């Protein structure tokens, strides 16, 4: 590498100083992924600066398909509108469901996208589509959003997990497991299914800390020889997995909600969803690039209005608490908060007073980093049956997300010698949504 030739040998000069300060503001994401030479976190000023510039993402995954008509794109008065009204928000001209009064007060951070048409109304297939931004090919399994961001925004020698996913409910769990696809288990999520303490993160009592560390070093040394002359990425992943163990063990505290002052815990509220979103904030604050918090089960084929009457206010409360919290800590400019489901729900109300799966005209929101808050993109018709303006699919949504986080959505990964761009060639991010 050309940089190495300019080195005077001091690790502090392992990268051009002006370049660092220049790029730190503009594109710390690309920079962070290459920072293998200099352990920046050892240098307090640089560490602080870097931590602030690093982009992160929290995905509030509304599993089962939240109804756009009871959240972000209400149609009161239409035959398909249902009983809830729409309320004005802090941004003139934007109305959302009356079930979200707190978010209505804070619309300035959020961009609502009302024009998703994703053509897949099956839980499993749609969850895969909306988590990856594309469909898997028979012989190519794509990484999902978390895995891509773990790779793009994470650090190689990360002392914290790169991708954490909370999904405590049993409904729909098997339908959208996190996956790193062809990027490999290195970027697979730390899946939290039942406990707030990651599994196997604590050293057992029977071994002291020094032995634990040296036992691992012994393992590394014994394994090194075997890899000689045997090039295999499977083999490499084995050693990489073991090398991250100690660092991950140290990050256990981040998952402990009790570490937060009660005042903050109260803001998020007493629900599991609230607690997990608060922990998500702790994680991204410590440098975890991506956290998904799944809230199930929005699949209201029956009793749609009761279900949403229960779930939407919680979302409203927790999301507001999160945005306020991020803003107070100066993190909102560098954190993208997404609300997303696998699809929306039909305008048509069925005989069980429910709404069914509907991928033809539904909504998602983006708040914070890189997006134009206080705006709406796209429009649906009076009954909410079709998109009439700004129709987009999963690909454009993902291109927009990547761009908002400072990532080139046409960047190529390589599978063997095949270039695989992050989004399909020709996909354009939504300029109107980006700040």
């Amino acid at each position, binding site marked *: 590498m050309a940089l190495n030739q300019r080195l005077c040998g001091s690790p502090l000069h392992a990268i051009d100083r002006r370049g660092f300060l220049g790029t730190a503001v503009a594109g710390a994401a690309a920079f962070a992924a290459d920072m293998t030479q200099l352990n920046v976190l050892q240098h307090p000023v640089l560490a602080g600066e870097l931590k602030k510039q690093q982009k992160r993402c929290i995905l509030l995954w509304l599993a089962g398909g939240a109804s756009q008509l009871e959240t972000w794109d209400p149609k009161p008065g239409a035959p398909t509108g249902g009983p809830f009204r729409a309320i004005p928000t802090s941004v003139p001209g934007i109305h959302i469901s009356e079930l979200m009064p707190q978010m209505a007060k804070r619309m300035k951070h959020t961009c609502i996208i009302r024009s998703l048409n994703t053509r897949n109304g099956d839980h499993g297939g749609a969850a895969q589509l909306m988590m990856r931004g594309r469909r898997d090919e028979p012989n190519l399994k794509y990484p999902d959003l978390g895995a891509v961001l773990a790779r793009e925004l994470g650090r190689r020698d990360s002392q914290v997990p790169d991708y954490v996913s909370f999904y405590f409910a049993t409904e729909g769990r098997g339908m959208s497991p996190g996956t790193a696809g062809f990027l490999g288990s290195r970027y697979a999520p730390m899946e939290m299914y039942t406990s707030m303490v990651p599994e196997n993160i604590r050293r057992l009592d029977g071994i002291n800390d020094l032995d634990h560390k040296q036992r691992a070093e012994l393992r590394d040394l014994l394994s090194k020889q075997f890899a000689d002359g045997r*090039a295999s990425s499977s083999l490499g992943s084995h050693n990489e997995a073991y090398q991250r163990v100690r660092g991950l063990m140290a990050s256990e505290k981040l998952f402990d909600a009790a570490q937060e002052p009660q005042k903050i815990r109260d803001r998020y509220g007493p629900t599991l969803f609230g607690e997990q979103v608060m922990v998500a904030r702790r994680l991204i604050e410590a440098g975890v690039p991506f956290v998904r918090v799944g809230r199930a089960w929005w699949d209201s084929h029956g009793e749609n209005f009761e279900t949403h009457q229960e779930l939407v206010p919680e979302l409203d409360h927790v999301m507001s608490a999160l945005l306020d919290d991020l803003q107070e800590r100066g993190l909102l400019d560098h954190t993208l908060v997404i609300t997303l489901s696998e699809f929306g729900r039909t305008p048509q109300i069925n005989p069980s007073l429910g709404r069914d799966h509907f991928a033809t005209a539904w909504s998602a929101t983006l708040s914070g980093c890189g997006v134009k808050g206080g705006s709406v993109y796209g429009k649906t018709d009076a009954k909410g049956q079709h998109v009439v303006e700004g129709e987009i699919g999963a690909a454009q949504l993902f291109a927009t997300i990547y761009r908002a986080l400072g990532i080139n959505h046409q960047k190529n990964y390589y599978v063997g010698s095949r270039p695989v761009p992050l989004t399909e060639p020709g996909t354009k991010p939504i300029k109107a949504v980006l700040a």
Partner: protein
Amino acid sequence: MRFIRLIPSLVAILCGPSLVRANELLPRNLPLEQVIDHYVEERLKEEGIEPAPPAGDANFTRRLTLDLAGRIPTLEETQTFVASAKADKRIALVERLMNAPGFVRHQATEFDTMLMSGTRGSVRGYLLEALAQNRPWDLVYRDLMLPDENDPKRKAANEFLRQRVRDLDKLTAEVSSIFFGVNISCARCHDHPLVADWKQDHFFGMKSFFSRTYESGGKLAERETGLVKFKTTKGVERQARLMFLTGKVIETDTLKESPGSDTKKGKKTNAKSTPPPAPPKFSARAELVKLSLEPGQRDFFARSIVNRIWHRFFGYGLVMPLDQMHSENAPSHPELLDWLARDLVEHQYDVRRLIRGLVLSRAYARESRWDKGEAPRAAVFAVARVRPLTPMQLAMSLRLAVTDPQTLSASLKSEEFDKRLQALESSAGGLARRFDQPGDDFQVGVSEALLFSNGSEIEKDLLADGGDRLLGRLKQLKNREVAIDLAVRTILCRPSSDSERQLLADYLKQRADRPAEALRQMIWALLTSAEFRFNY
């Protein structure tokens, strides 16, 4: 020049296997391993590649035992083989392992994975029975596709259909992929953009064979009539025919909508008391089975199973990926695939025979180390591949590795030996569920590393002390070096190197105040080393 010699193979590759006529293949009466080596080495010569040397005896024993018996070899199995001076010892080892009961158990696990991964069911019970009799593969296929619910032996095979009967698209796609090596699921929505072979007609043609199958009162049933309709990308509605992947159509007058089926009546029937619905006079599924095994139609079936079994033993198929066997994706060795498929068909689809031939070849027995820079691509089989152990192989091998080798000595009668192995296998089942089934390009996740580093079940199960444990035996040995060598030989199935002994001796010496603990940690480091985790 080399290039000119390549032209005939290039032509064969570009034109696809259909142009290679049977009379161009090597004669029928040759041993499989000879044919395999002929074609593989012919290609290596054409490309000027010198293959890796044969794997050493210890390495070969480990690889073969893992592939045939699903476990690492015992200390004495390795030592006996290495020490033997018999010229035919490799053949003898293959035969011993294939005749041992462990062979059937392991193959049942592997075929069960092939048939049922992605579902929540298993047909392993059925497979144990079938493989013990070396049931021909076409009859196994028939048992799975047309399960006889009245025959107690064959009934268990019905899980294959039952796990998929609620999603007929999935059933169609998976039967095509597993038995015919073809993934046509994209053709559900549109003609395949790249592969002329697969149009919507093909997907819905295949689906037509399955669309009449349903479940009623817990029993599988099939209607006599049925009609699948679909819309083309241009919005034109079409009716599907019973069409196989080759394009061959079964003409029938049963292509009509079926009258309201019993399932829609909403009656809750007691599954045990109602007899299975009578089989229809015309069974679309039976027609598929019959058609797919006919001469001229059975190439898909034969080639797919040959390719899948080859893939399991070599870590890389003759066609890759396994479900992309179409004209745009030629096999790496077209004549070899054709020859092996023909051999299989002409020997009553005898998979044992195929397996035996694969493991006796030189191609299978190569070293996995390549010291001359970048290794050649996998498709030339110049060097053995490193393959992650399957969950059951790993769990079983872990249990074996921590067992005192004296309890598994060669002096045991073979029934007693097998009984002990079975005991280890049944206790390995729970541990196996903690590991992921590896696919191609498997990446070990950090959760596995955390499991081994901090998981209490690993601590309790594998690192415990006890009379029949390796740890117990090591504790009794006064000589540190002897203990170290025994540990390495038991766990890694090979002698220790000087540098390893030095490294481990230093580690133990530093912990002279807690020798048992130190031994436990040494065992841990060997069990979690990369070498243990893989078949190489």
